[in-house]
């Protein structure tokens, strides 16, 4: 009647989603087991592509809180201060850098695009992405190596 705690979520997910999540885990374990450096780097780069940086998170936060504030303001004008403060802080972040949710996000470990990018550069270098291109001194080859995922 009452499903098990451990399996109630996976038993209500499409089987291809469950399979995909399991395969990802197996690939990670396999790479560690074989001590396969390149596979581990590939996996980490793939993760970093998907990591939500500070900008993406702040924008989403701004948009959602704005919609809530707007709905509240439509009901009672006393909420208009919030509905104006939220976009004002987003602009402050865009121009100057700080905004109230930033301190919270940073404490949760949300990184800037630059921080993520520095990790990607190091990983790409370790994978040897740049080795050939740099000897060629060819701009196109270096640009292509820089774009490689």
């Amino acid at each position: 009647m009452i499903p098990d705690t451990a399996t109630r979520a996976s038993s209500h997910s499409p089987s291809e989603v469950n399979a995909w999540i399991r395969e990802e885990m197996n690939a990670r374990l396999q790479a560690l087991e074989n001590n396969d450096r390149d596979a581990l780097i590939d996996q980490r780069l793939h993760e970093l592509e998907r990591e939500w940086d500070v900008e993406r998170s702040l924008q989403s936060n701004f948009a959602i809180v704005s919609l809530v504030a707007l709905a509240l303001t439509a009901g009672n004008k006393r909420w208009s201060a919030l509905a104006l403060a939220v976009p004002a802080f987003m602009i402050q972040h865009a121009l100057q850098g700080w905004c109230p949710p930033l301190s919270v996000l940073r404490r949760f470990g949300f990184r800037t695009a630059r921080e993520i990018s520095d990790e990607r550069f190091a990983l790409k270098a370790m994978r040897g992405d740049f080795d050939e291109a740099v000897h060629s001194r060819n701009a196109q080859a270096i640009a292509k190596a820089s774009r490689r995922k």
Partner: protein
Amino acid sequence: MQPTTTRVEASTAAGSNEAIRQDSEQRIAAYIQAEPQAIEQRLRELDREWTTERIIETEAPLMVGLGVLLGLTKDRRWFGLSAVSASMVILHNLQGWYPLLPILRRLGVRSQNEIEQERYALRVLRGEHSRHPTRVSSDAASTTTVH
């Protein structure tokens, strides 16, 4: 959901992407023989370049705030402007597209990722990649320098 790095490019016309890419390659070519100082200066310039995200983060809240002000003072229907503007930002973050994106991209405004790729090329030109050796050998790979 689109990856953070490529969501702008994925929502841009192929022609605009290609033009931006060619511009970047030409600029990299100009720095192939450059002195380290010139590369350093170019990296500083790239740090100042406004990305699609920074422009959206300025424009969207202006629209939201304007809608709220007009909604309070003129006509409640102006709240719709705020609601649509905020929704477009959500769309941008989930999927990548944004109403201004086609114009911004045609004007050559780059995503953070495109700028980072040009930075990678410049960092490689001054040999920074050799701090992260391809082969696992010693502990020489430990430091990541941020520029």
